[in-house]
């Protein structure tokens, strides 16, 4: 376990470096919510999910839906590191003609399971995939990553109700609970608390973890595999901008690219 955690920690740092570089190179994008999700996404792509990057449409693959689509950089970095496309392509983020659109486009980039960007929709699509798995008798798992601000969208709760109703035990929703959205702290803009209780009340198996501690992330994802006829929601406490000191807890780093010295400092901290 220690060795696995050490490897994942190093991989997550590599992914964070990619995030900083690609958003800086693009001159725009969303570093804060990409960095807060880096450990969760690393755990999924480098430890938990059944994938074959040379066969991105393998029917039995596990699916990951980035419902908080603005965190595209963390997904792209993980896909590139996993071998879906060359790491060098990360520098094309948000540029004309790039497969790396500002928000994920499933028709452009292999490995992207759903086009997202309009918040609140990804869990519904994940439900559909989980239902399809059942219809086809396949044992793949479906993961969806949501933001805590995103949980203000009504559709999230429509989907939450449906996933429990249809007993989608092959589905895991992870909430990147970094406490911030664009206009400020989630608690001040529009509180979603008590968030774990809400998922529980909707009939989900709920786990609360530190979303930066692989010692908690991995066991939670394992537990989600045997939730006894219920979908699992993992509410992961995270730090927006995690890993870059001047971005951490910073509401202003939601959708702003670092420049010049900031890039150097960020990369030095992530070295």
């Amino acid at each position, binding site marked *: 376990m220690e060795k696995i955690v050490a490897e994942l920690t190093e991989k997550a740092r590599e992914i964070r470096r990619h995030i900083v570089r690609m958003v800086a190179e693009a001159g725009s994008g969303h570093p804060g919510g990409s960095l807060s999700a880096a450990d969760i996404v690393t755990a999924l792509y480098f430890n938990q999910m059944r994938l074959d990057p040379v066969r991105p449409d393998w*029917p039995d693959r596990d*699916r990951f*839906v980035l419902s908080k689509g603005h965190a595209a950089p963390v997904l792209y970095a993980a896909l590139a590191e996993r071998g879906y496309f060359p790491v060098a392509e990360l520098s094309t983020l948000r540029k004309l003609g790039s497969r790396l659109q500002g928000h994920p*486009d*499933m*028709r452009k980039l292999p490995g992207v*399971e*759903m*086009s*997202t*960007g*309009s918040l*609140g*929709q*990804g*869990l*519904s*699509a*994940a*439900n*559909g*995939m*989980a*239902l*399809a*798995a059942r*219809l*086809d008798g396949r044992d793949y798992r479906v993961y969806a990553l949501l933001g805590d601000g995103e949980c203000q969208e*009504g*559709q999230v709760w*429509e*989907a939450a*109700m*449906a996933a429990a*109703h*249809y007993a989608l035990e092959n589905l895991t929703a992870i909430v990147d609970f970094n406490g911030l959205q664009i206009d400020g702290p989630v608690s001040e803009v529009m509180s979603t608390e008590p968030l774990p209780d809400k998922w529980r009340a909707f009939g989900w198996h709920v786990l609360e973890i530190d979303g930066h501690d692989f010692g908690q992330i991995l066991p939670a994802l394992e537990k989600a595999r045997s939730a006894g006829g219920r979908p699992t929601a993992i509410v992961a406490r995270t730090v927006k901008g995690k890993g870059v000191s001047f971005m951490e807890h910073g509401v202003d780093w939601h959708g702003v690219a670092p420049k010049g010295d900031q890039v150097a400092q960020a990369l030095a901290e992530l070295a």
Partner: protein
Amino acid sequence: MQKIATREAYGKALVELGTGNPDIVVLDADLAKSTRTIEFKKRFPHRFFDLGVAEANMVGTAAGLAAAGKIPFCSTFAVFAAGRAFDQIRQSVAYPRLNVKIAASHAGITVGEDGASHQSVEDVALMRVLPNMTVFVPADAVETAGAVRAAVDIDGPVYIRLGRAGVPVLHGDDFKFVPGQAVTLRQGLDATIIASGFMVGQALQAADLLAAEGIEAGVLNIHTIKPLDVQAVVDAAQRTGFIVTAEEHSIIGGLGSAVAETLAEHYPVPMLRVGLQDVFGESGRPDELLQKYGLTPDDIVNAVQKLL
């Protein structure tokens, strides 16, 4: 003449196609009895999903099913499908070009007594503007069956507009529904009426009334609003020199607009649009509403006479 609502034909077609194709799944939002997806539910309960009164989630779920290889048909009233779930259709279906079929019933004012909240007069406009979307407005039971079959064959998003009211059966069983191909139902060199859906029957009656006065009006039935049969529209304009369109929809954004855009670019001729004149409907019997909102055969006749 035998009358069948297009929603009835839809329910029947789903069962027929579902029998031969195990990938077809059907979703509804607590209106299965009205949209007639209940027929599919009875036959294939494990391939039917009721999502409750939650249209956004229904469309999003369909997107996920399509991404995993299924052919989902989503049904609810047109006003809730195209309106309430518009962003889900845009973001999760049309943009990713997913193989989702939206079959929306109770379109237009022939919904009747339920009133304006339930009478969609804007759904064709909303769906037509979306890239990757095919839009069918079948005029009778036979076209509906053809449209559903065509939707299964098309690999991509399709919107099918269905009605509550019974409509005359216009075609024999040998009719071949070809997406994007307008159907000439009546020849006539004096005028052309281009109609869709419920208004095709009204247009045919209008043509009868005109014939009684010695005016030969052609009736062109456009069951595919998008892609539009540009050639058929231009040919009609060249043949008769003016066009009257007739639709059970706002004159803004639907069939009338599509025809006007086409004529303006390819062959400008005078035209008039029969339809909802930028207003919502209200409660009433369908026949009363058709009268009040100017969607009767007489209204079409008047439009033709204005342009003659």
